[in-house]
Structure formats: C-alpha cells, structure tokens
C-alpha cells in the first residue's frame, strides 16, 4: 500500500482526501471513505431562452425540446414549467436582480434587495471550504445574482486567469500570513476608533453600517488564516484561449473552472450570472447583439440567430454536466453530489415578461422527472426553499415562497 507522500500533503493540503478521491490519485489505495459533500450551482441566463425551443412540446419527453433533445444527461435532469417570481410585472431587465432573491419590484427607485439563496447556502455549507462561495459572471459589470443579507450586490469574478489563480495559483504563504496579520492590526485599530465615534452618538447608523462590514472582513481574515495551513490544490491549466468565439470561450472556461472548483472541493456553492452587453457576440453560425436579437418579435431570421446563441449555451451546459458525471466520487459521480439549477429572470425576454421561467434542475442525486409541468404558476422561491431544506438549512420560508412542494424526488 502506497503511503501518501509529504509532497502530496503539501500539494493538496487539507483537501487531500477529497483531492485523492476526485483526482483519482492512487486509484489502488482506498482512502477511508469520506461522505461526498453536497454542492450546488446556480446559473442565470439573464436573457432567457426562447420558450418554444426550450420547453418540450410533448409533455414529459425532453427529446421533444429543440434545445434539450441533444443533451446527454437527460436522465439526470428535470425541466420545470410554470415557475415565476411574483411582483415582476414591470421589472424588465431589473428582474435579474431578483433571480435568486425573489424580492418584488426590483425596478422601484427605492428598491433594496434581500439575501440571495446562494448566500444563505454559503453561510450554511461554505465554511468548510477555502472559498465559501464562488460568484462568476461573463462581463465586468460588478453585480450578478448574489446579494448579501443587507441586499448589497456581491461583485462576481469574470477574469478566468484571475479565477484560476485564485483557486489554484501558487501563493507566497509567508507574505500572505504577514498580510493577514497586518490587516488584523488595522481592523483592531478601526474598532477602537469606531468605539469613540459611536460615543459621539449622532452618527450611529453610519458607523454601525461600517462596523457590520468590517466584522465580516474580520471573519474572512480568520477564514483565510485558517486556510493558510493547507496548500491549494494543483491542477493543470485546462482553460481555452480560442479568441475566434470569445464569448463561447468565456462561458466554456467558467464552466471548466466551476468543475475544477467542485472537483477539488475548493468551494461548494457557485453562482454563474450570464450577463450581457449591447455589443455583438460571435458564436458558431451567428454574430449579433445578443440583447438586440433577444427582442426577436417572432421574426424567423432573428430567431434563427438567437437560437444559435441559446443552443450554444445549452451545448456548453451539456458538456459541463457530462464532464461532471464522468468524475467518480464515492458511490456516484461529482454530478450526483452537485445540484445544478439553470434558469432565467425572464420568461420571455422579447416582451420582457417574467412568467413561466425556464428552469432546469440537474444532478444532485435526485430521481429526476425529465419534465414537470406545474399546474399553477408557482413561486420559484418554493423550489429555492426546497433546495435549502435539502441542504439542511432549516428555514420556514425564503423570499416569496409559500411552501416546500417536495418537487425533487429521491
């Protein structure tokens, strides 16, 4: 029986058992069984999917969907029809802010968002990994679908190279340790100043708002200090550099990074906001402004181009699910231990309506139903509530939820 070398301990650190597991290191060695962790990923396609191409035309049969029929993991996914978020009647693109929060009227000038479901999960299950969660987006926009408990946007990461480096890049540990100590000194100093500022009294709200944030930063520093003891996992850089279809490359790389992050147990919660810009994008077979095309108005030639873009996203999702399912973990696969929720804030982006949101739940080890058509329009937060329960977050409700409908079987 081969011993785990010191070198490997250094390389994989505390995540070693998992890393050995997932990277299939010493396949001969059977490390003592570790129950695979449960992970979750949320994907928001902010311009939605063209419904007639997305939803199966024959109830229950995914191969009757133009987009989904080619997907390989049909047996590990369920498409839901008839979810919606209440209170999005005039929200337009602002509805994107509420995709994971369910907060009503995001277009209102005095709107304040609420916590997003991924953040609730990150609080619950994020503490065990180097990164409690990983927010991703395509563009450098500064906000995505993740919102903290004060309704403040959490800026997603969009630069693949930086993300790779964050997850797997070599670190100067001594410098990092000094850095953390230095920051902790600063934080202590600031607490002292805040104490005297608070005594002055007239600015309590202001100082309290800052105190909340710095308390979170302090926690982060502690978390980082803890993880200094373990080296980051080392994985080969498998990112694509194809610039011809820069948009597709970006999406592909973000999926790849998600897979690697899950595989190495660097995080257990990922949120991928597929945001958009006015500028044109290029996918095989179509070039155009994604947003411009999304207002297809039913025109055939516009839909042709739009569906190339949407189809491309579905193909990338397919690849992601397939690859996740090829990685064995415990008695199942990585996909079996990862719930992937794909959806959109728009039911129909051409008309800016938010009914019948396209929704897929894949993986997670559920007994999937292929296609579930809900009888009545149902708050998407019901599903979120169920997912929270499934991840042992014991809450009575979330957002606009009414009840845990037990939609996921097994």
């Amino acid at each position, binding site marked *: 029986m081969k011993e785990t070398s010191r070198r490997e301990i250094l390389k994989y650190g505390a995540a070693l058992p998992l890393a050995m597991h997932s990277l299939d290191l010493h396949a001969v060695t059977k490390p003592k069984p570790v129950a695979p962790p449960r992970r979750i990923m949320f994907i928001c396609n902010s311009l939605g999917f063209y419904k007639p191409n997305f939803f199966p035309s024959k109830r229950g049969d995914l191969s009757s969907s133009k987009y989904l029929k080619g997907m390989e993991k049909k047996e590990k996914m369920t498409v839901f029809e008839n979810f919606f978020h209440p209170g999005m009647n005039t929200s337009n693109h602002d509805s994107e802010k509420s995709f994971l929060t369910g907060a009503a009227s995001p277009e209102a*000038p005095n709107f304040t968002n609420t916590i997003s479901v991924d953040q609730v999960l990150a609080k619950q299950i994020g503490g065990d990994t180097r990164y409690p969660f990983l927010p991703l987006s395509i563009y450098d926009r500064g906000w995505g679908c993740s919102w903290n408990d004060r309704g403040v946007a*959490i*800026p997603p990461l969009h630069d693949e190279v930086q993300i790779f480096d964050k997850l797997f890049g070599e670190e100067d540990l001594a410098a990092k340790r000094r850095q953390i100590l230095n920051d902790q000194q600063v934080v202590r100093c600031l607490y002292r*100043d805040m104490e005297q500022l608070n005594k*002055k009294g007239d600015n309590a709200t202001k100082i309290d708002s800052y105190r909340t944030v710095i308390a979170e930063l302090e926690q982060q520093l502690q978390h980082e200090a803890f993880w200094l003891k373990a080296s980051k996992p080392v994985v080969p850089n498998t990112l694509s550099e194809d610039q011809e279809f820069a948009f597709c490359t970006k999406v592909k790389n973000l999926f790849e990074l998600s897979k690697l992050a899950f595989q190495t147990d660097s995080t257990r919660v990922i949120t991928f906001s597929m945001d958009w810009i006015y500028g044109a994008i290029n996918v095989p077979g179509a070039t*155009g402004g994604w947003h*411009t095309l999304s*207002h297809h108005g039913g025109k055939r030639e516009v839909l042709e181009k739009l569906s190339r873009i949407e189809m491309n996203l579905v193909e990338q999702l397919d690849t992601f699910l397939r690859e996740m399912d090829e990685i064995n973990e415990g008695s199942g696969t990585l996909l079996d231990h990862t719930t992937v929720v794909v959806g959109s804030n728009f039911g129909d982006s051409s008309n*800016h309506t938010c009914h019948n949101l396209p929704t897929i739940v894949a993986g997670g080890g559920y007994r999937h139903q292929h296609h579930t058509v809900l009888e009545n329009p149902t708050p998407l937060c019901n599903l979120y509530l169920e997912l929270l329960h499934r991840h042992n977050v014991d809450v009575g409700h979330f957002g606009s939820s009414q009840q845990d409908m037990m939609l996921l079987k097994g």
Partner: protein
Amino acid sequence: MIKINSHPRFLLPLIGWQVCPFLICYLWSCFLLLGPISSAPAFDERPKQLFQKYCFDCHDDVTEEGGLDLKRLLEIRGFDGRLLFENLAVQKMPPADMDQPSANEKQAMLEWLASQQKERAPDSFGRMSRHEFVHSINDLLGTNLNLAEVIPDDRGTYDFESDRRIKLSREMLSAYFSVADEMLDFGFPPQGFPQEQLWLTNKLKDSHPSYDIYVRDYKDGILFSWTRANNGNSYSFFYDNFDPPAAGWYDLTFDTMKIGEFAEDISIQVHAGKYYFADDRPQPQRLLGVISVGNRELQARKLRVFLQPDESVSVHCYSKYTFRQKNGDQGAYIKQLQIRGPLQDQWPPTSFQKVFAGLPIKANPRKTIKVADIQTHLERIGGHLSVSSFQQGMEKEKMQDGSNRTFWHTQFTPTVAKPPHFVILENPRGVEIKGLSYSTWSGGNGNGQVKGYSVQFSDDGQTWETPIIKGVLETRLPNEQTILFPSKTSKRFIRFLVTDAVSLDGKSLASVGKLDVVVDQKNAAGLSQVSIATSAPDDLRQVMKRFSEKAFASELSEGELAPYVDVSLESLEKQGDFVKAARLGFKAMICSPRFLIRPGEYSNASYTKAAELARVLWLSVPDDELLRLSQSNQLSGKTLSDQIDRMLKDKKSERMIESFCDQWLNLRAWKKVTPSLKLYPGYDDLLNYYLPIEARSYLHHLIQENRPVTHLIDSDYSFLNQRLAQHYGLRGVVGQGIRRVTFSADVPRGGLLTMGAVLKVTTDGFDTSPILRGAWISRNIVGTPLSPPPENVKAIEPKSGDAVTLREQIEQHKSSDACYHCHKSIDPYGFALEGFDATGQYRTKYRVRKPHRGTFLFRLQGYYQLGKSVDTSGEIDQDQFEDVFGLKKILLSDHRKIAYNFAKKFFEYANGYKPSLQQRVVLLGMIQEKDDDCRMKDLVTRVLTYSLTGESR
C-alpha cells in the same frame, strides 16, 4: 450635504436602468400611482385654480385625457406629483397649442406641487467610490497609479457612482484594503526603489518575410506601415530587448520620421501588453499613447507611460496611405527606441517628501544604469552558450543576435554532424532561471527546425541529470515559444537537447533562430533604499497628525487620533522601522470609516465644504490651500466661489469631466461595443481612442470657458484632430493633437448630439436604433419625463442587416395609442440622428451587410451594399423638422429645458441623490431667461454652492 429639510425620494420612474431600445412604451398617466386614498384637506385655492385653468380642460373627470383625472388626483392627500411637476417644468404640459401659464403662475404651481410632496429623505451618507479612493490616495502619497479598475464596479444600475443607495460590501472593503496596500507598496516599497535604467532597442521580437507588408528593416531601424491583420485587428509589433523590470513610469523616446509624400501625419500607436505573436489574435492591449509624425527628419518623440512587469511595448502604425503595400516605402521610420525608467519625479521620491516633510530622509544617491545596447538575458546574467556542432556562417552567436532571420545550424557540409544535437547554456553565477525562450528561424525552407526537445541540468557540464522537461515545438511560426521549467533552477549547466527535427533531405540536422534563458528581471539592477533617519515617537505622531488632517479633512484631537498613532507606535516599538510603522497607520486611516464613508467627521463647517468640493471637483481630498482656509473656517461667500473657480481651473478637475462624461453621457459603456468591421471597416483603435476625448474636451471647454448652455445642443466648433476630422469628412486638419476646429454652416456637427462618441455609444455596433438614441437624448439631454414600458406590449425590433429600415417599423408605434403617447416624444430625436451611422459618420443611405465566404477577411471596402435612403425628418411637439439641423433649432428654442436637465444631472452627480421637487424649484430658479446669459460654469458653480450651503443667490 444639502441644508434643505425636505429631501427627494427619487425622480419619476425614468426609463429602466438599461434603456431597452425597443420597449419604451406606454402612457405616462399610468404612473401617477396613488398613495393611500384619503379625503383631502382644504388647500390653498389659488394654485388649484391655476391647475383648473390650464389643465382641467383635458384632464378632468369627463375628458380624462391619457387616463388622467387631475381634478380627482389633486384632492388626494399625498398624491404623487413628480411626473406632473416635471411635465410642467419642462413645458411638456400644457401642450404647446393650449393656453400657457405665465412665469409667475407656473412658479406658483410648481411650488405648490413641491409643497404637497412627502419625499423620503435620501440616505445621510454614502460610501466613497473606487475612483475617489484611488485619486485620493494618489494625491495623499504623490503617486500616480491607475488602479480603479482593479476594484469592482459597485455602481450597479444606478446612474451615478456617487449614489448614496450604493452600500459598502465586504468584497468592496476587502478590495479597498488590498489596493491600499498596493499603493502604499508603490510609494514606500519595502525592498527599496528599483534603480533607473536606460535601454536602447531597434529590434522587434518577430520578424518574418511575410510581415514585410507591415514592417521591414529600413536604414538603421524599422519602417512601420499600417498594419491591420486579416481579421481586422491592429497588428502591433513588440520591441525586443526590453521588458520592464518593475511596475512604474517609463519614458519612451522614439527617434522617428515620416516617410511618404502626402500631407497628413502618420500615427504611431504605442501599446503595452503581454507579448503575443503577430499571427495570433491579439490579447487585450492598452493603448498608451499616440505619436503623430509629420516631420521628415528624425526627431526624438517622447511618451511617459506606466508599465507593468509582465508587459512589453508594441507599436502599431496608422496612416490611410500605407495599408499593406508589398513594396511600400511609406510609413513611420523608427530608428530606435530609448526607454528610461522606472522614473521618480524627484529624489528622494515624492511620496517620502510628501508624508515625511521636515524629517531627515536618508536616500542613496540615484544614478541611471545603462543597459548594454542589445543584450540577451543570458548575456545579462553573465552566461554563454556552446553547441554540439555548427555550420560555417550559422554559428551559435546567431541564436543570440536578436534576429530570427539568422540562425544556428548544425554542421551539414562537408560532413553531416551526427546526433545528439544540442545547445548548452552556461550559468556561471548561478542565477535563478525560470525557463528557456525559443524561436524558429524564418525566411528559409525550414530544414532542421526543432520539433522535439528535452532539457537537462548538470553541475559540471559532464554528467547530466534525467530530463527535467520534454516537449514539442511549433515549427512553422517565428514566434517566441517559452519553455518553463517545473521550478526555477540555478544549476550551472542547462542542456537543450534536440530530440526531433524537420528533415527535408533525410539527414540529421538541427537549427534554431533564437535561444535565450527566461529570468526574473525584477530588481536585477538593484534597489535604492530610502529611509527616515529618526525613530522618535514624537516624529511619528507628527506624521500621523499631518496625514490625518489631509485624509480626513479635519483636525483630530489627540484622543481621536490615538488608535492610529498607537497602532504605528506599537509597530515602531516592535520592529523599529519608522516607515513601516507609519505605513500601518496610513493604511488604517485610508481604510477607516472616517475616510471611506462620506460625509466624514469634520471639525468645522469649512472642512465639510472643503471635503465635498474636493470630492466633487477632483474626486479627491482637499489640497493644502483648502485645508488652510478650512482651519480658520473661512470657506464661505466669495472665498468659497473663488475656490470653486480655482479648483475648476486646476488640472485635477479633468477627473470630474471624465467621471461626469462616463456617467452622464454613459461613456463608461464605451469599451463594450465594437462596431462591426463588415459594415464599418474604417473604424479602428485610433478612432476609438480619440472619440471620447472629443466629448470630454468639449465639455471641459464649455465649463472652463463658461460657454452658453445652448452649446450642449449646438455650436460651430468642436475639438478634433486629424483622425476625427477624417472621420467627419473635414479637410485640412493635420496632426493628432486635439485642437479647436470651427465648422462651416453646412457641417452637421457641433454640440453633443452629433458627436461621434455619443452616436456610437447609443448603438449595438451594427445597426442604429432611433429608439435607443431617442431615449438617450430624452433622458440625458432634454430630460423628457418618461415611464418604463409596461408589461405585455409587443416589442418592435430592428431587422438586422436587411433593407427594411427600422424607422418603417417604428412607425408602427403610431398604430398603437399606448405606444405612441410616449414614443412621440422619444423616437423623433432618433429619427434626426439616423443621418449618422453606428460610428457617428454622416450617411444618406443605409449600409446593408453582404455575406462573406468562409472566414472573415478584413478589407477596406467592407462587406456591404448601399440600401435605402435615410429619412431624417420628424415631428416633435408639433414642430416639424427635416434633419438634425432642424431638430437642433427646435431644441434650442427652449434653452431652459436643457439647462434644467443639466442642473439636475450635475446636482445628482454631486450629491448622490436626485433633487427633491423643492430643490428642483430652486434649480429652475438658477436658469436665466435669456439663453445667452445661461452659462455652463455659472450653472455648475451655482449648483455646487447651493449643494454646499443651501444658498441659491
């Protein structure tokens, strides 16, 4: 910061955060949403009678025009009168063909409406923006770093970065912490300041016969011609023999001249970026600056630029005369490039002189180290190489001469050398080597190019370890290929063993164009230490006190300052390093709520004003003069307006111009849209660089020179250079310097609307959309009150690339009352601008895309044919216009609308919230009756003064 009791909530429901071009619909009346209905108290009868007189004809319980029963609405307590207010203020209502209230009557109506509003007060504080953060620290430390982009953009969907609804998050605070460190590291580098070095180079990293259409050897240097790649990207070629050893400022001096018999200047675009091989698609590069070359004799032209250690300098040349000529002899001849840096403005460095003024600064004398003219990294580390064999004329030196047209070749005549073929690189000083850099040779049949290799190390050059790395190499392209070792090595001998090579004649051969080592350049030239020759706690206290006054714009008592002083003193005590101790205190201050949350804590009213002024006009902290005036609490009255004047004249106010343009005109979206090269092959990096500069220069001029507000709409001048003039079809502007250019009457330019930057930022890069542009003008220039489109109104979309004009489709808006009610005040602006394409060029016909075969291949004539003629006519508020000249006339007929909108925008930019209705009444009062009296700088000054003092003169 404003001293008015009632604060605004927010403006009316303006169009959604991202103006959705094809869905701005519906009637405004549905947005007069009612609060809880209760019986109205008796109110002042006079204004009510005025409403009755001027409004009830259409908006009473009988007619209910637009679904609005004003008679009923006004009786409701707490009704939402914001939209009503705006319609009245900008004279959208009553309609032009109805009786109009007199000025006094209107004032009374507006004041009454304002008094009826219960608006939620804006938040009393906001966080500092990322741009303010970086500028402030630069000014505090005397550094000049552009790190705002490293911090996430937290503006979200709000218009202005200053918006108080934006709250600090842990992620943002964490980014501030780390950027603070980065900036302090730059001002006070723990290891010392890198020595200044001087490089000379006249060689490029890539050379290949097929590049002769772009660059060729010429006299002692290189002739650059317009170098646009097949895919339309700018080919830019990287200079060899220079890699910045450290982040910092460098002077690039090009000895250059124009070659070519034409009047225009040639432009040298100087970029920085990670090296990429010219045949590859460029990685993102930064345009550092442009050198305009008109001189026909060599001249030294200098650019001061900031470079990062992983970047190289590359050059792209532009002139419309020199596009890909096989045997061209036109272009920019660059004899050599001289680079000096990293620079310090002064020595000891500014950062030390600024924050440790008065203390003894100890600094080694600084000298410039000249780097040998052309030197490989191997030579630089004192190394040399040997080879298994060589052919005469193809010696080992040919791998080290900076050219891949010359090469080393194993011996093939008179006898063919037997394998193994190898190169041994010797590293006598034991420098850490990261890897090897390899290039094929170019210009021949490729015989002997290396296909497979392995690398071995040895301590004595005799016994070789097992290969540390093996791999394959690209044989066709002459790009630099980097072979990185798994870890750095300082072994004495490195053997590059050829394991496989191209063999056209069946013989065993090997040949290499370039071979060099990859080393960490950092600090290769050494570092200069700078320190403070004191360790007295009192000195440290003084330093902290001075810094705190500047950073916090306030005088702190000893007690207040104690946490910051103590944290530094503790460090001084423990580590004995004065600078390090001070740094820790600085960092705590610039991460503190006193600094990051605005307004901060100020010891008197003048400090409050000074801090706000500096934030709004400079995106920074107050300077010494403002602090001096604040200390004696003198910042009011004439002193205040004099200071505003001084601050506007200061160069730092350009930050405000840039920031305001980015946000108000949405130029921040600039990089997101790239015009299609199929439709607009003339669009290039140079144009992309100068278009926003025109907009900024223009606004800067309007404010600095106190021009009439009407110049926002029209004037007979703008700020152009050769490239912009070419774009606008104007002759006689030579050189890329931006200068004021006067238009003749028939030129459809002047004012913001017809500026290329604005015209481009309102499209998706393919087609223009009258709705998007119309909405942009309504929202940003005219301030027409708009409502978001409601649900379930069918969208109208452009049919990309086909001959049916969008306009024809938009006319459908007329077919629906619901759409038309709003769109009649939006679309017409866009119609007038249909005379300009997605790059802002004037047009009379639409371009219709033509398909191309296979892969897109850039060509000057693009891929389009001319389609239908453009119709630029329209009607707005019953005024007809034929084209943009006519539209401008209509807009100019009421300068108050334009001035009012500008005042509101500037107010929001400055304060971080939209003015309340009561504040809007005051803003309206700032606007002169006569258009020529209504001036930009006056307006800016008044809005600012009002914001600071509540006085509106």
